[in-house]
Each structure stands twice: as C-alpha cells, then as structure tokens.
C-alpha cells in the first residue's frame, strides 16, 4: 500500500518513548503542553515502554484532540512462538556485515552504508524478518564471528543475549510501522527506539519527521547504562580496568548511538531546547542546516499571578522539584541540606516529586535523610501542584547531574522564586543569560558544580540570608522568563514547525533510490 491510498486520521503522529502519558516529568509535561496548545491539530500517539508492569496508571488525562493512542512494550516477550531453524538469507547477512561496519565507522563508509541501511530496513518485514535474526544459521554464524573478533568479555551466553535483547525491539518497531494509522507528519520527542521508529515510518510512508530533543537521549542512556547492574561484566579483578566500561555496556552505548544517528539522518527538522544541545546534536551527526533551538515556554499568566501570594519575608525553605531518581542526584541535595541546616535554624528542604519510578533509590534517599538526622528538615512531598507550592518556598534547587531546559526553574522565576542549580544543560543560560542583552538582565540565581554539596549549601545560604541579593535575583528571573521563555513564543515557533512538516513530501524519484535497492 502506498501513502496516497491511506487517509490520514491525525495531523501529527507523536512517538513517545517512556514518557507521556505514563511517566510524570519535564518531557511529559511538555508533550501535554504541546497537545493542549494546538487544539486545532489532531494527534495520534504511539507510546513505547519497556514492560507493562513498569508503568502504573496514566499520569495525565488524554486531551480531546488525541484521536489515537497505542502502547507497545519492547522488553516483553513476544507471542512469536514458532521456533524453527532456517538457513538464513546469505545476501542479507552479507549486507548486515557491511551495515555494522558502517555503524562502527560512519564517516569512512557513508555512501555505501546509507544504501545498505536503506536496503536492510526495507526488508525488516521481508527477507530480513525476525525469524532470520532469531533462528537462522546465518545469524548464528555472524554472531559467533563477531564474538570471536570483538568481544572482550569471555561470557558467550551474556554476549548472545545482549545481542538478542538489544535487537529484538527492532522487529517489533518494524511491525508498528505497518500498523500505525496514517498521519500527516511524525514527531518524535527523543532519538532511541522512538526516533528509530520515526525513521522507519518516514521511510515507509514518505512523511516528514520532526525530532524534538529535550536532553540528548544517547547521553542519558549512557548514564543509565553505566549505572545499570543488569548488564553483565564478567571480567576478573585482574582483567578489569575501572576506566573502561565492560564490553556489554559499550555495546549498548554504541547501539543507541547508531539508533540516534539513523534518527538524525531521517529527521527533516531537528529541534534542540538550547544552544549547547544543538551543538551536541551536530557533533553526534545531525546535519547543522536542519537543526534549530526552541526553548520551553511556560504559562506566564498563571505563574506570574503567584507573586502576589508570596509572604513578605523570604521563607527559609528550598525545594527540589523533580522525580526521585538517580539522575536528579537527590543525595547531593540531602547532603547540602545537612550543611545548611547546621547554620540556618528552622531551615526546611522539600522534595516535590513522585518516588515510584525508582523505589530502590527513593529508599536509599530516605535512609540517607535518617542517617544524617534530617528527619525534621527534609520533607518528601510526592507530586505537588506547583501553583500551591511555589508561593511557599524561598528557592528552587536542582542538583541534577543531567538536565535539559528545566521548566521548574522557569516556573519558579515566573512566580518570583530565584534558583540554585548545578551546571548542567541550559542552567547556565537560564541563570546568567545567553547573549549580551540577556546577560544584562543580571543573574537570576546561582550555578554550582555537580555533586558538590558544600558549594550548593554556600550558594543557598548566600541567597536566603541576603535579602537584597535574593530580591535582585528574583527580579532578574521574572524579567528573563517574560522576555525569552513564554508559551506564546514557543507555540509560535512550533506552529511554524508543524506547518512545514504536514506539507506532503515529494515522492522519491528513481534517481534518489539507492542502487542497492534496485538489485532484483
């Protein structure tokens, strides 16, 4: 079936991996904001998750302009049960070897690699289907050959299952490509599996693909993977080099890098939240001409109204607004609290965010609070309404080791609350300004190094105990957010993005079809 035969059921096909509507967080709120911000557009959502049991109920009400929502869980055992040995398509596995050479060295093989990729991706439901990967002798030969050539970890069974677990979702995605309802353009909010799905969809149905990246998916994955205990590392004490990741970790990282590159190559518009990330995308293989920045915008009317509710004095309360997960480095925040509480009587540190995503980490944090004797200073509030929370606090604090463009800082600024944050993502830009005009507005808070409780404590104390400095920072924050980070600004930019994305693409001409595909 070709695209003209399919009548679009929605304007935008949103590809969401591990976020809206099942996971609360910055990206999810942003997705929700975009959907509700464009009531004139209709959306079809494809949610990709790991396993159904990893997610609870939906965290968001589904807006009325979402006309379709489907969920797929990539790490669940598929119902594909017919196990039967097959010989394997030797030609396809020959191309597969070329493809992996290309992934290992994209610059050297750019032209040939692109053609090969195109061919293999086109056969994911055909000559390179799931049974070829799972049950063919050719697949076994390639896997064992690669193990012999490259694997530095002795365990073959771990290597084998790493390869299988990693690649298995690809065929699930290939099936989604056929079943996902027709839309006028695709919009993925990360690279990774969702971004790869976007690339497949674009290739199959010839529609524009927009990529909005909040963080840099491959970078975040890398952090997750370095910390993941489920990845085997069988090197002995003598073999182990602490500065080098185990082979299976490296495999996973390279895998996601390859998925990311395929998504960048396929995307017509690559949107970063701020300049540092855009540069990173370019470095990771995005074509500079397709990249741009659209910072987040917040509801300035809603949050601006909170300023009048603020008490006259600065409340000696700081609040970390975010999920209780390792990436937010809650432990540094707790340690900083210990230092501040000793010097500022009556000081309160709140943590407003759900704890269900990483219960083990949340338990560790609570244990740390108890062991530092901070039970009376630190409160775990769970998910909170920001409009009620922000007027009560004196500082918004972020201790994350990775952030993109944290909305909570902007919302705090709008409500008249300055901030202390680690130097990650766009925080430097939000606190001190980007261009000279922006800088002239002054500092709206303090940026400290990551994992430095002492510096964080000093910065918090400096603001909370110095009223003129606090008020100056609050004023700078209000001015900056009103000028650069409002919703109308963001919606205008995205309106333009969607307007160009929904325009039908030219059908590919014969000349643009790679030579490899034309082989009989």
């Amino acid at each position, binding site marked *: 079936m070709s695209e003209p035969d399919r009548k679009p059921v929605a304007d935008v096909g949103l590809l969401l991996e591990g976020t809206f509507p099942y996971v609360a967080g910055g990206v999810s709120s942003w997705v929700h904001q975009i959907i509700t911000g464009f009531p004139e557009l209709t959306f079809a959502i494809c949610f990709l998750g790991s396993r159904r049991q990893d997610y609870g109920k939906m965290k968001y009400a589904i807006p009325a302009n979402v006309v379709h929502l489907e969920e797929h869980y990539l790490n669940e055992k598929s119902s594909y049960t017919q196990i039967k040995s097959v010989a394997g398509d030797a030609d396809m596995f020959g191309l597969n070897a070329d493809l992996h050479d290309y992934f290992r060295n994209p610059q050297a093989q750019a032209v040939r690699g692109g053609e090969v990729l195109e061919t293999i991706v086109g056969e994911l439901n055909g000559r390179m289907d799931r049974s070829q990967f799972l049950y063919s002798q050719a697949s*076994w030969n390639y896997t064992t050959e690669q193990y012999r050539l490259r694997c530095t970890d*002795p365990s073959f069974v771990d290597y084998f299952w790493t390869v299988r677990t990693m690649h298995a979702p690809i065929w699930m995605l290939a099936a989604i490509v056929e079943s996902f309802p027709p839309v006028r353009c695709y919009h993925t909010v990360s690279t990774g599996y969702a971004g790869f799905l976007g690339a497949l969809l674009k290739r199959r149905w010839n529609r524009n693909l927009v990529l909005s990246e909040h963080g840099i998916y491959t970078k975040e994955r890398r952090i997750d993977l370095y910390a993941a205990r489920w990845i085997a590392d069988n090197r002995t004490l003598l073999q182990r080099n602490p500065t080098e990741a185990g082979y299976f970790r490296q495999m996973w990282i390279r895998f996601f890098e390859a998925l990311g590159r395929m998504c960048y190559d396929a995307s017509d518009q690559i949107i970063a939240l701020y300049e540092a990330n855009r540069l990173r995308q370019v470095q990771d293989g995005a074509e500079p001409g397709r990249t741009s920045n659209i910072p987040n915008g917040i509801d300035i009317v809603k949050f601006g109204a909170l300023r009048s509710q603020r008490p006259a004095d600065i409340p000696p309360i700081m609040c970390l607004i975010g999920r209780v997960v390792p990436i937010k480095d809650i432990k540094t925040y707790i340690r900083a609290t210990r230092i501040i509480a000793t010097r500022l009587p009556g000081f309160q540190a709140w943590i407003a965010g759900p704890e269900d995503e990483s219960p083990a980490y949340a338990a560790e944090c609570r244990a740390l609070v108890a062991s530092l004797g901070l039970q009376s200073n630190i409160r775990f509030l769970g998910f909170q309404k920001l409009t009620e929370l922000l007027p009560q606090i004196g500082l918004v604090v972020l201790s994350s080791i990775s952030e993109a463009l944290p909305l909570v800082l902007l919302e705090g600024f709008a409500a008249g609350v300055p901030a202390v944050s680690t130097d990650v993502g766009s925080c430097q830009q939000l606190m001190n300004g980007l261009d000279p005009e922006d800088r002239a507005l002054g500092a709206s808070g303090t940026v400290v190094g990551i994992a430095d409780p002492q510096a964080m404590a000093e910065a918090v104390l400096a603001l909370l105990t110095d009223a003129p400095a606090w008020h100056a920072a609050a004023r700078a924050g209000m001015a900056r957010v009103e000028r650069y980070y409002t919703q109308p600004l963001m919606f205008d930019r995205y309106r333009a993005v969607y307007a160009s994305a929904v325009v039908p693409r030219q059908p590919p001409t014969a000349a643009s079809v790679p030579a490899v595909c034309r082989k009989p």
Partner: protein
Amino acid sequence: MAGIGFELRKLLNRDSYFSLVRAYAYAGLISSGPWVLSILGLLAIGLLPANADAPQHLMTQFQVSVTYLIMGTLIFTGLIQLAFTRWVSDRLFARETEPIMPNFAGVVLVTNLAGGLVAGVLAFTAFRGETVLYRAMMVCGFVVLSDVWVATIFLSGLKLYKTIVGLFAGGYSLSVVAALLLRGQGVEGLLIGYLGGQFFMLCGMVFIVLRTFPTRRLIAFDCFVPGAMFPSLIAVGVLYNLGIWADKIVFWLAPQTSSAIIGPLRASVIYDLPVFLAYLGIIPGMAVFLVRFETDFVEWYDKFYNAVRKGGSLQEISRMRDEMVFSIRSGLFDIVKMQTLSVLLMVVFAPAIFAKLSISGLYLPLFYVDAVAASLQVALLAVMNVFFYLDKRPQVLIITSMLTVLNFSLSIVTLHLGVAYYGYGFAVALLITLVVALLMLERKISNLEFDTFMLQ
C-alpha cells in the same frame, strides 16, 4: 543426586587394575542385573528336575506363559515408563518432591485398572478354554508384572540400581523356591509360586519408594493432566519395547516356526532359546555402557551446559562439546570392542556349554547371530541415551519407529528366506537403525551450539 556415576568414579579413582575390574563388574551387575536375573530365574524353574507331578510340557507351558506376561507387560507399560520417569525427573529438577509419591500411586492404580481390564478381557475371550485358576493367575501376573516394571523404571530413574538388583535377586530366589514347592499343582502351581515371589519383590519396591518420598497425600493424578507428560515419550516407550520383541512375535505367530503351547499362546522352539541365551552375552557391553556414559559422557555433558549457562567463552563451549563428542565416540568404541570380545568368547565356548546343558547344537548358528544383534542393541541403547540427555525426543521417536518397522518387516522376510537366515532380520534391523541413529547424532551434535542457543 550423586547417582551411579559418582559411585563408579569413586571405584575408578582408586587407581588400580583391581578397582577398574571391580568398577566394571559392579556396573555389569547393576546394569544387567534385573533382566539377567529374570532369564536365569525362568531357566532355573525350567531346569527343576521334572517328575511325574510336573512333566516337561508343563514346564514349557509355564515358561511360555511367563514370557508372554513379561513381553505383554513391557509393551503395555512402555506407555508410561519413559514419560513418567521424565515427569519425575522434571519434578526432582524443580525440587518439588512432594507430588512424586502420590503420583506414583496414581500411575500404579491406573496401570492396575487398565492392565486388569486388558488381561480380564483376554481371559474371558482368548483363554476361554483354560482353567479358572490359570486365567486368574494370568490376570494377576499381568497386573503384578506391570507394577514391577513401573516400580523398576521409577527406581532406575532415581539411580537406585543396587536396590533394584538386590530386590530382583531376592524376588527371583523366592519365585524359584516357591515354584519348586508348588510344582505338584501343575502349571497353575508354578505360576502361583513365581508370582508370589514377584509380588513380594513388588512390595519391597513400593516400600523403598515410600521410604524415599514420604507423603501425606495418598494418591494424585497430576502427571495425567494433558501436557504433563510428553506424548513423544509415551510413543517411544511403546515403540522401543515393541521393536525389541517384534522378531520374537513374528516367529511365534508363524506356523512353520512355532507350535501352540497353551491356550492361544504359541512359542518357537528353534527361535526363543538362542535369543534369550544371547542376551546373557551383553553383560560386558552393558557394564562398559554404564561406566563410559554415566561417568565420562555425563561429566562432559555437565561441563558443556555449565559453560553455556555460567558464561563460558564460545571457545570453551566448543571445547566441551568436542570432549563430549569424544567421550561418546570412545564409549561406543569400547562397547564395540567389548562386545566383539564377548561374541568371540561365545563362539569359542558356546558348543561346549550347550553340550553341557544338553541344548542341541543346531541352535548355535542362530545363537551367534543373536549374540551380534544383542551387542548392536547395547550400542543403540547408548546412542538413544545420548539423545535423551540432549533432550532430542523427536530423534528417539524416529529411531524407535524405525526399529519396530524394520524388525517386523525384516523378520518376516527372513521367515520366507529359510532357516539359515533366522535371526538376521533382528540383527540387520538393529544395524540399520544404529547407523541411522549415529548419522542423526552426528548431525545434531555438530549443530549443538546453534540448537542450544538459537532454538530454545
């Protein structure tokens, strides 16, 4: 479970020629004990001094009746033997010992009901002309022997070989003595005596089972739930026993080689005795089989799967596979060597022994062929054992089906070719099946890593 391999290795590790001999003797005893004792027991009862109360033809009637009982019950319980053993070992592997005993009781009950029904129907139809007591004893015999096989296979599954041999020795001694005392009562008396011994043997087995798996539940039927037992193993159990007996059945039913003995039962004077005597010649082969496959092969088999599961390198996995292949090859070679020697010895000494036991020298050529055939059967058993370890049930099903079909058809062919060819049907059927089984093993094992990883 330490199993028999452990004990054998202990004997082998003492590192002296005598300990090696002891290990093989021990293995020979426990691997061949039950059926050697069965054959010897039957022969012993047959060789009891005939007198006016028990003339020779009564002895023949008795022996033929029991032979049919043994064959009938082996084929009948073939339905359950392997499938139930597998079910038990799966429970043991999952460390769920509680349901084992009640299910054993369940299997015995079902066997008794079904066996009793089959035997009862036959007693009222085919055996209508016989005395009530004879018919009653045959029905009892069918049930008791069925239970004996179920209990034996159950105990072998638990690797309690020594216990089994002890019980068989005791049971058959009792059978012989009781038959001797009751032979005045004709064929019925002999049967009562024989079955009495068997019944006590069965009681001993049940006692051992109860002691091994104490339980609160009396009976359960979990293993009969659809999907609990492998249908392929049910088929293999029946086909293997049928395949082994096929040539005997052919010769019993053919008018030119058999005569009616009692009721519908026919026996073949020229065919039976050489076959049963030939089976005594595979004791050395069975000993080698047990020693080589329960120690060397199982050791490498375990190492192979440990390397697979516990993160060995691919090279290591392949090496274990190669060692496993080598242990299979050398085990089969040893069986062949040992059986060649055994057959040669039989050829040398059989004439003298036959003369001593006043068995006609005309039996000798058939006896030699059967000795070779029985040796091939040991090798086939070894290959099937490897397939069972590798859990290749479809292959075993093919092998046993082939054996059954070939043994039936080739035996019928030899029947028409003439006396000189008797026994060759059985031998050639085994030879072809063995060669095919080896080729299949070759193919399976060269793909072992692929199968193990990709197709699970």
